[in-house]
């Protein structure tokens, strides 16, 4: 079974939330950040991530592990902020008491600018002068290994019927439920990449061959597929499927 974030193919969601102009044309010029607090929530999350206490897969899993009622009620950046708060405490960068103290100060309008005046930066802190350099490097997940891919392009495969994460119950994986137990075809091979299923739990990068796999819409959705010729592609790690013989 899965978590709420795993929503591909789910029924019940309404129209895409789009803004239309007076000619009923979809507006395609939404600003980068709609509100200042969106920009701040995003930037604080990136800057805190740069302290090196967690990786991208861990932060994704923290968002997925928010209680279902919060996951559904929170807007996008509220999820980021909630997951960040839990990470900061779990990874001991701040204490729960400190969170409570600063929340009280914020609620009573007592976040005095003196609190952040002449602060000595932590050794690990991401400096403004390094921002462009770090963004340019990014965080590649491709690893050079001696792993040879065991499947080849064109192979017929079938995905696992259940969450591939065998080490952790309800653990992180990138095989969506809608593509479990489905027959597909290997479309391309992309080298060995960090395996989120282990990396999200601090259990190592485990570089593993990654493929792009092609599925027929009819295989995924049966009679409710919109068009018999349509295709869906997913990027799947080698342990997510076996040969369909």
């Amino acid at each position: 079974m899965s978590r709420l974030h795993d929503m591909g193919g789910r029924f019940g969601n309404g129209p895409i939330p789009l803004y239309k102009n007076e000619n009923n044309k979809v507006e395609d010029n939404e600003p980068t950040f709609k509100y200042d607090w969106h920009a701040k929530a995003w930037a604080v999350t990136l800057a805190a991530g740069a302290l090196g206490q967690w990786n991208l897969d861990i932060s994704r899993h923290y968002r997925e592990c928010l209680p279902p009622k919060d996951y559904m009620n929170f807007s996008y950046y509220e999820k980021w902020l909630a997951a960040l708060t839990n990470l900061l405490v779990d990874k001991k960068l701040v204490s729960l008491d400190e969170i409570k103290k600063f929340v009280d100060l914020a609620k009573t309008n007592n976040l005095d600018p003196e609190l952040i005046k002449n602060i000595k930066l932590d050794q690990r802190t991401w400096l403004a002068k390094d921002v462009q350099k770090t963004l340019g490097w990014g965080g590649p997940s491709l690893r050079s290994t001696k792993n040879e891919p065991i499947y080849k392009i064109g192979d017929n495969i079938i995905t696992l019927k259940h969450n591939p994460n065998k080490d952790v119950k309800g653990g992180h994986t990138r095989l969506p439920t809608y593509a479990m137990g489905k027959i597909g075809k290997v479309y391309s091979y992309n080298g060995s990449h960090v395996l989120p299923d282990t990396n999200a739990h601090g259990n190592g990068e485990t570089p593993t061959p990654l493929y792009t796999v092609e599925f027929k819409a009819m295989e995924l959705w049966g009679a409710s597929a919109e068009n018999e010729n349509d295709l869906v592609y997913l990027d799947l790690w080698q342990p997510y499927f076996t040969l369909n013989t």
Partner: protein
Amino acid sequence: MNSKENNHSHHDHEHDHAHSHLPSDPELRVKAIETLLLSKGLIDPNTLDELIDTYENNIGPQNGAKVVAKAWVDKDYKKRLLENATSAIRELSYQGRQGENMVVVENTPEIHNVVVCTLCSCYPWPVLGIPPTWYKSDEYRSRAVREPRKVLSEFGLNIDPKVQIKVWDSTAELRYLVLPMRPFGSENMNEAELAELVTRNSMIGTGLPENVK
């Protein structure tokens, strides 16, 4: 990262989630966390400004538009772009965070490509910037894989039933960019003029480039 967690998923079983202590007003929530981290020297206020300024002004769909326009006028570049998108995009100095491994998929009269991330909000930052709200919405994430034609029609894009739709669900760290078809009547336009026609949505597959006026 530091501890092995084998039997259950980290804080599932804790009753006292740190985030449940946050105030209900999201603006106050951010302010509290930001000020706490600043007071401990764990974030540099100049870094926050630099990040926000970079993505508001330098990294966005205008970058992807230049990639697309170049591919429209330069056959060799288009070939490199489709064969190794990461290095071809790096030729224009676009690279790095959330675009470390790029894939470009080409629209043709027979094939229409559309990109989604059903599990979260994966998106090619170096060429498109930060994703718009609809891309991150439950509606788009849940429906784009199952009923792409209906979804595209809500964007005003009606795809002929004879055209095949390919949906790319970004489940790993590969980031997808759609190469839309060059608009009719744009034969005499130069690269810079063509880039003006390329919309953000046309590079996600939920729109087309602007028509030639």
